[in-house]
């Protein structure tokens, strides 16, 4: 077992028992005992004031990661002829990482008729674009996209590969990482280079966002990470930048797949793409009825935003699931999130608590939503929302 308790050092203080999120370490007969279910997360080791707990880490025995892996890569997110904003955010972050390491920044661009995008990526910071341009790659396909990516990684050996934590990235990256038998960290909110080891320090939320964890992948390459949209800043384009385009030969073998895309359906009906919205006006059970969402819709439009909802509002059939924010809905990080009549259950908070600015409007001063709000209005949403609309209209000179 990879965790040991030094009985001489243990004072049976019980701090470890309190700290364990899995409830597996207990004080028995005046000493800490680790039971079944230990995941070696390290919470107890951190909290033990007597250094009585040691978690075995293979660090000392293993060699360092292969030296020949160099370069930071971004897997471009391409869909329906467009590059998603997250690609430029990854370029922004990737440029910083590449500069810290003194290596090249490249983008892997899979799609159809994407030459213009390749140029745009270079202008936005890429030194190289690996361009796999083929009609057979028009739609994302887990098998073909992964096969081509793995091929490229094995040929060119980047040390870091980043992709968006999106519906595409969160299926693409894991398949690639599994084939390369390398490490992948999902939904990173922080990425830094450790100056001593040159390893990528990957920070992400866990336990539904209630704790943050920093993760490393020291011995295998590439180090892979996915990043949520709107977490990093987009790179600034520079029309004078130059780079090179490496054309990837897309052979029939690489296009072989047991998956056939029949149809791509973009749901424009409601036009809701919460992920890209800069402003979200969100309603909860406090809105009392579906018709009251029209007020929120008006407010959202005035602010150039879209409407969101808590699970309670969606389950009450007041608004479609596409608008749901939270653990079982979407995770969003807009510039401004206005929570109207939302109590702030943890499952909702995990879906929006990384928004830049949170405004909460609720009658109940004890509502948990106020714990994450930057601005709190304790009041009746049926008075506050109309006033917001009126005040904004006035400022707009209407």
């Amino acid at each position, binding site marked *: 077992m990879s965790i040991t308790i030094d009985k001489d050092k243990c004072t049976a203080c019980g701090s470890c028992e309190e700290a364990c999120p899995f409830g597996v370490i207990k004080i028995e007969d005046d000493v800490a005992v680790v039971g079944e279910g230990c995941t070696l997360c390290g919470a107890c080791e951190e909290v033990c004031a007597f250094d009585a707990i040691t978690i075995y880490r293979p660090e000392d025995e293993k060699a360092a990661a292969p030296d020949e892996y160099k370069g930071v890569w971004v897997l471009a997110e391409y869909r329906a002829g467009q590059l998603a904003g997250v690609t430029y955010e990854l370029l922004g972050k990737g440029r910083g990482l590449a500069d810290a390491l003194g290596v090249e920044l490249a983008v892997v661009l899979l799609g159809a008729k994407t030459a213009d995008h390749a140029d745009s990526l270079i202008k936005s910071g890429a030194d190289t674009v690996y361009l796999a341009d083929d009609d057979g790659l028009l739609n994302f396909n887990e098998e073909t996209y992964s096969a081509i990516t793995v091929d490229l990684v094995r040929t060119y050996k980047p040390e870091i590969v980043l992709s968006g934590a999106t519906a595409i990235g969160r299926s693409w990256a894991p398949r690639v990482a599994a084939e390369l038998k390398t490490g992948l960290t999902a939904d990173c909110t922080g990425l830094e280079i450790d100056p001593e080891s040159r390893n990528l320090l990957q920070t992400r939320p866990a336990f539904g966002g209630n704790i943050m964890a920093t993760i490393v992948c020291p011995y295998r390459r590439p180090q892979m990470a996915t990043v949520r949209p709107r977490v990093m800043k987009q790179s600034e384009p520079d029309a004078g930048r130059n780079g090179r385009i490496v054309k990837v030969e897309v052979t029939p073998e690489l296009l072989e797949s047991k998956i056939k895309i029949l149809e791509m359906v973009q749901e424009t009906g409601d036009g809701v793409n919460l992920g890209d919205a800069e402003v979200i006006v969100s309603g909860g059970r406090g809105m009392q009825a579906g018709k009251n969402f029209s007020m929120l819709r008006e407010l959202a439009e005035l602010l150039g935003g879209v409407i969101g909802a808590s699970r309670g509002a969606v389950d009450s059939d007041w608004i479609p699931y596409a608008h749901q924010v939270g653990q079982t809905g979407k995770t969003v990080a807009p510039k401004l999130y206005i929570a109207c009549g939302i109590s702030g259950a943890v*499952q909702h908070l995990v879906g929006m608590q990384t928004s830049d600015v949170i405004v909460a409007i609720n009658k109940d001063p004890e509502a948990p939503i106020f714990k994450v709000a930057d601005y709190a*209005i304790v009041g009746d949403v049926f008075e506050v929302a109309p006033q917001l609309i009126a005040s904004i209209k006035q400022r707009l000179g209407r």
Partner: protein
Amino acid sequence: MNVVVLLKQVPDTKDVKIDPETNTLKREGVESIINPFDMYALEAGLRIKDQTGAKVTLMSMGPPQAAEALREALAYGADEAILLSHRAFAGSDTLATSLTLAAGVRKLGGVSLILCGKQAIDGDTAQVGPGVARHLGLPHTAFVRKIEKVAETSLIVQRMMDDGYDRLEIELPALLTVVKEINEPRVPSLKGKMRAKKIEIQTWGPEELGLNDEELGLKGSATWVTQIFAPKPRGKQMTLEGDVKEQVEKLLDFLIQDKIINIQ
């Protein structure tokens, strides 16, 4: 047709927090539950069983207590349950976990379809499903919101995208990860619960799976946690005072001043 549903027993994450002052994890009587997303995968498997007479086998990797979750899931109508459990599995990251589960499915043999929830609510990575598929050399698609058609050798499914969905045909054997939208899980019947009590849950370890030390647990993991800490407490937490108009005007002033909105 043989269907495997992968499920995980997880702590009920809403009860897990960090004390920001001491930077230690606290848990107030954390309950263990079946990962909610896996319930939707289970329901999807049971519907295929209802439709085609398929056999549904549950599989989970975890400590011995995870057998409770399997027992609970059996009550919904699954036929068999297998627990992959051994001290050697401790400390597994998603790579080691997916390798271990893939070995379990391989040992079971003759599997046409593997279903799992999109992600577990403790790790939140959504990586294990795709990893299992890749290790088995199977096609996979993720975030399936609807299974339109089930045939002997292929499925037609709708796979969620950030702006809608794709409809695709996937040849079996294959793996799907599912989202909550896909169905409404049934309620277990009393008969189902009685039946579940009598089903023997097998336990397999590294020997049964033919895996060696290097591929398991911490040693078989590519990543590990070096630090855990409390999320930064949110910024201002400013309560706006005054009557409604005053509150609103002050709010708008702040938002405009900080360039959060632009309505000049």
